[in-house]
């Protein structure tokens, strides 16, 4: 009798626990998706300044980019002068680079997505966001913490086995109240911390409020970091699919 009651209690506990876990997994994914949509929008235009900071020097890059959903993006380099006018176009899984000085459109093979973009700490893949933080990962809420005075969900993202992702896992801090991400920690497959990314300078941009300054610090390289400041952002730009064409990649400025 006592035994049966115990079993019932255990079963009830399991049902509730599983129900909770399921709800939490769904919530975690929804929270990540909300943050992603907030920062990216269905379509957007932005101008950004990137600084590559090393103990003895700093190099800066400025670029404009247009994006529509996750499938289309176009990036135009504004500076430094020697690279001005170079364009990267991404459509679905394909990517091209336009070199205006020699009038050549170079198709980028998948392996070249790993290559440093313009000599920066970011890769081609980071720039055109080939892999999706929403679809290529499993998400789980693992805690709650305060970041810069805002209460955040601590969410663990583990990539799907077949996903073309270099990270072993990512731990994100996402604001409970405002929905944006304030911190990402990137780990390799041995669970060693590789990069810490933090976001700040929260501003109202059009119809939303988001961080506009990103800082990436490699774990094992003291004095190094890469920062990106979003100087202009506009969401909901009306961009025709034709904007992301070979013809426009040669013309955009």
């Amino acid at each position, binding site marked *: 009798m006592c035994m049966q009651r115990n079993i019932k209690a255990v079963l009830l506990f399991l049902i509730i626990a599983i129900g909770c876990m399921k709800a939490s997994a769904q919530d975690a994914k929804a929270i990540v998706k909300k943050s992603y949509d907030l920062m990216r929008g269905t379509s957007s235009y932005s101008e950004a300044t990137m600084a590559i900071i090393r103990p003895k020097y700093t190099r800066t890059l400025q670029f404009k980019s247009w994006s529509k959903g996750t499938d289309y993006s176009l990036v135009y380099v504004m500076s430094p002068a020697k690279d001005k006018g170079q364009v990267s176009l991404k*459509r679905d899984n394909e990517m091209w680079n336009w070199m205006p000085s020699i009038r050549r459109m170079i198709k980028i093979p998948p*392996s070249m997505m790993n290559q440093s973009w313009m000599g920066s700490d970011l890769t081609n893949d980071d720039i055109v966001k080939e892999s999706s933080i929403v679809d290529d990962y499993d998400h789980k809420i693992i805690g709650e913490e305060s970041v810069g005075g805002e209460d955040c969900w601590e969410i663990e993202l583990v990539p799907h086995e077949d996903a073309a992702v270099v990270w072993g896992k990512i731990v994100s801090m996402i604001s409970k109240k405002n929905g944006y991400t304030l911190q990402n920690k990137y780990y390799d497959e041995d669970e060693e911390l590789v990069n810490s990314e933090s976001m700040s300078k929260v501003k109202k941009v059009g119809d939303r409020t988001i961080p506009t300054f990103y800082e990436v610090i490699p774990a094992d390289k003291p004095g190094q970091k890469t920062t990106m400041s979003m100087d202009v952002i506009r969401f909901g730009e009306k961009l025709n699919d034709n904007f992301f064409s070979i013809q426009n990649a040669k013309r955009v400025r």
Partner: protein
Amino acid sequence: MIGILILCLTSVSAQDKKCQMSGYVKNMEGVFFLGSSMEEQLGTNMMDYNLTHQRLNFDYFFTSDLLFTVQMRNRFYVGGMVRDIPFFADYTAYDNGKVDMSWNIATGDNWFLNTNIDRLYIDYTYQSWNLTVGRQRINWGINFVWNPNDLFNTYNYLDFDYEERPGADAVKLTRYFGYTASLEVAYKMADEMIYRTFAASYRFNLKGYDIQIIGGWKGYDLVLGTGWTGNIKGAGFRGEMSYFHPMTGYKDDSKEALVTSLSLDYTFPKGLYLQTSFLFNSLGTTGDIDQENLLYVDANLSAKNLSLGKYEGFVQASYQLSPITYISGSVITNLSDGSGYCGPSVTFSILDNLDLMTMGQVFWGKSLSEYGNQPNSAYIRLKYSF
């Protein structure tokens, strides 16, 4: 040119973006180490030149669809090489376009100043149409070293300091279809028939491959070709093939030829980039190279005549050592006579707009080979871009 400057200045003061100006100033020291045969002729085993090279690019947008572009380079050469090699200055002034736009505007005993306009065109876009008239670069090449599909403006890979590569005096009409397809027709003008080209290309994207089919006439030949770029297991796979057939009435002036180049490139996760390329040139030789021909390599360079050898190979490795240091090395070899070239280089960014590059060009091979008699050389170059 002055008109453009005035247009630019007035538009800058009007605070609009109708005019764009860019360019660079470079200074390069080149040192050549001569072989024994040249040493006897010239009485020295070393020669040099110093090149100050200024480039100006102007774009003027009458409207967002109508663009006028002019780009020029001014080069000031000074050094023993200018004095001791009599044809050096004349060779630099040579322009094989329809309009001669390269001038040695001042010359001295061991120096000269050359001005060359290598882009001068009007570009008009109407919806999915584009028309470009004037001296322009028409780039049909796909590979990085040898381009059998580049029917209009072949470049010499070893001429590393000419970063923009030559243009062609031409009219080009392009019609775009959808997002990635296009049909292009172009006519390159020249006084001599051998330099004229009239050809069309159709480009499209199929299952992750960009493919082009080209056809037309070039010089005395009918040309048919194809090129593609795609990937095999993540590695870039690029190819170009062109077949040249002498037109009726020109069988004595020209020979049939097939030129093919294939290449593979791969970027490793840590950023190391490797590339290999192969060229087959049916008019090339597997035997001794007539050394007279070496003198005219640049003048005779065309899609039909990319090498003197029949089979050529290329390997390149490059690596971004840090955000400011880029290292690269490439090797070209004539696969029949074993002669070759090796070009190591290091590029160092001193400031955002200031770069220092050092480069070597080392050649090897026996006396009647393709690369064996070229002098080894070393360069150091400072470049300020604006």
